[in-house]
């Protein structure tokens, strides 16, 4: 018995010195200082040079994301050769298919692809009622909202800042926001990844 107690105490002591647990609980408003700026003015559009891998298929072209107002966003993808692959309307987290070529018309495919694309939309970075915990050693920020856990990691390089947003729910969706310089929080590149349908998205902002 004594040996067991000693072992337990020893383990607890090791845990205290080796774990990198959260250091402080920050104010919830602080999260907005860390979020990438994805705002698009109403009526305006942002263009991304994109490539999307969906299951075994890959396609590339231009993704146009337009703010239609009232939290509605329209996303149109056209290939370099001028073929329009899809035209989706995203409202909150719901994707409506306005047009889709082949399997891109399928509701389930559109739902999961829409989820990835929605990581380019500002409303997905709304963290009201969140609990924020920071770890300044690893530049890691954890945010808990209901059953989803979001993890932010910011790596402060010379001209590049990466924010990794990992959404730990059923779809296991992650997004990597790459900022080109320290002054602007507008992402230059966004990479998304979802286990559903094995979706990988690469989006490079080309125009506003």
């Amino acid at each position, binding site marked *: 018995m004594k040996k067991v107690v000693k072992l337990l105490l020893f383990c607890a002591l090791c845990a205290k010195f080796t774990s990198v647990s959260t250091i402080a609980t920050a104010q919830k408003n602080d999260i907005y200082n860390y979020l990438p700026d994805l705002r698009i003015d109403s009526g305006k559009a942002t263009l991304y040079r994109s490539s999307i891998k969906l299951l075994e298929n890959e396609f590339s072209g231009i993704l146009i994301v337009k703010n239609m107002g009232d939290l509605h966003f329209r996303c149109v993808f*056209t290939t370099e050769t001028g*073929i329009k692959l899809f035209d989706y309307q995203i409202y909150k987290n719901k994707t409506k298919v306005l047009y889709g*070529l082949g399997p891109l018309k399928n509701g389930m495919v559109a739902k999961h692809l829409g989820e990835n694309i929605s990581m380019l939309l500002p409303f997905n970075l709304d963290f009201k009622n969140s609990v924020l915990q920071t770890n300044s050693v690893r530049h890691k920020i954890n945010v808990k909202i209901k059953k989803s856990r979001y993890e932010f990691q910011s790596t402060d390089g010379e001209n590049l800042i990466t924010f990794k947003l990992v959404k730990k729910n059923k779809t296991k969706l992650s997004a990597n926001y790459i900022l080109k310089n320290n002054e602007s929080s507008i992402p230059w590149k966004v990479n998304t990844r979802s286990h559903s349908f094995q979706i990988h998205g690469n989006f490079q902002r080309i125009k506003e």
Partner: protein
Amino acid sequence: MSKYVTRPFLIILVFFQFYKNAFSQFDKTVAAGNPNEIKAIIKVNALKSNDISAEFTQTKVLDIIMEKLESKGTFKFKKENKIRWEYSSPFQYLVIINGMKIYINDEGKKKEFDVKNNKMFREINKIVVGSVQGNLFENQDYKSRFFENEQVYHIIMQPVNVKMQEYVNEVNLYIDKKDLTLKRLKMSEKSGDYTLVDFHGHRVNHGIPDKVFSPEE
């Protein structure tokens, strides 16, 4: 005649002439009197052309944005089924169609597709090859109407198959009457969005080597 009448009249005349020259090539075509004659002329020319190369400007018009998406590049075709679309701006992008294979080089990233296993690519291949050769109207999957003006023959093609209309609602070909080269290709969608490709600097039968249509090139 009074100078107060002559001067405005001259200005209007000059303006009209400028307007007419600027826009007449592809505008205002009228129903052709003899479509069979046009088909025969284009078919004879297609038989004589072994290879074609040209510069192109592609404009994509989408209702979602005011701005038009413009790209430029070079185009090469060789009988029977070899096409090379090489975009140089704003991005480097290469598409090679060689028989039943499509090769894509997207700024270094290479992909390969089999046309026969992919219905969409099969149809696009038919449209592109048929448009370039000017004999798309021989394809029974499309119904065609013939128009013309002083400069061009204008052929409007529409897919017969309703499902095919999802990909392309209408194809417009503008063929130069003097040298029978394809000047403009317009592919329209049901939504109203369309892709316009303008060709210029044509060179016909100047001997394009097969290796140009190889993915290694």
